[in-house]
């Protein structure tokens, strides 16, 4: 079975799918990514599907699952580079990529993750108990 490589670039894991994946390869990628998120502590995952000429229900489900797993592991997932013909076909197939963020390309995906991360850190600061009012 072929395996999809996962690259670490700074705080982001980049997966560029370059082959027509068998279902087994897709499931393996899901597991490998979860392990790498935990091992590296990365807070962002970009899945580059520029080279994919189709996304069927199996791969669509894999993308949703990866997004859910990442969220639980405190990482943001962005799917980058979906071809227009793939997007049209997905809609007609009836697949809504629920909970998946998308970006036109990897660069935009990186910006999206950085922005989402900054937002989240802001919120975490907001949520900190206010020292003044917290004092009895």
């Amino acid at each position, binding site marked *: 079975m072929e395996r999809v490589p996962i690259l670490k670039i700074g705080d982001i894991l980049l997966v560029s799918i370059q082959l*027509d*994946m*068998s*279902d*087994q390869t897709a499931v393996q990628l899901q597991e490998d990514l979860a392990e790498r998120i935990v091992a590296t502590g990365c807070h962002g995952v970009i899945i580059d599907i520029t080279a994919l*000429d*189709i*996304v*069927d*229900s*199996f791969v*669509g*489900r894999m993308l949703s699952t990866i997004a859910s797993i990442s969220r639980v592991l405190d990482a943001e997932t962005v799917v980058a580079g979906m*071809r*227009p*013909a*793939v997007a*049209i*076909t997905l809609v*007609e*197939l*009836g*697949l809504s990529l629920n909970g998946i963020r998308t970006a036109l390309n990897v660069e935009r995906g990186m910006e999206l993750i950085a922005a989402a991360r900054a937002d989240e850190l802001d919120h975490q600061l907001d949520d900190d108990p206010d020292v003044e009012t917290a004092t009895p």
Partner: protein
Amino acid sequence: MTAGIDLGHPQAQAIRSDEDVVRVRQLVRAVAVAVKLSLVDQTKVVTAASELARNTLVYGGGGAVEVTIVDNGRRKGVRIVFADSGPGIPDLDLALTDGYTTGGGLGLGLSGARRLVDEFGIETSAATGTRITVTKWSR
């Protein structure tokens, strides 16, 4: 001629593993390109074939696919037949409903594939298994 495939004859491909499902996608793409389907239509028919080939493997217990170029005098097209000798589909209307699955999938394969092609036919019975024929025509 595409990548050594003789497109003058029907092309057969066994479906016994998920690697075979990949081969079905590649075969259908080669034929779709040969009959000059638009890029969107190529994508649609390959996606439909991927769904149906996976069903043949998972629910039909494996089987075979045959891909043929068809010509109605005005247009060319791709015809794909998926055949298995599995348990058949007891309730077709139900199986063709979006979201219906007995296998923990999304239940979109069959209904979605039907939307992605121009012609869609099913013969299914417990005795003979399932045979699905789809056609996509060039515009």
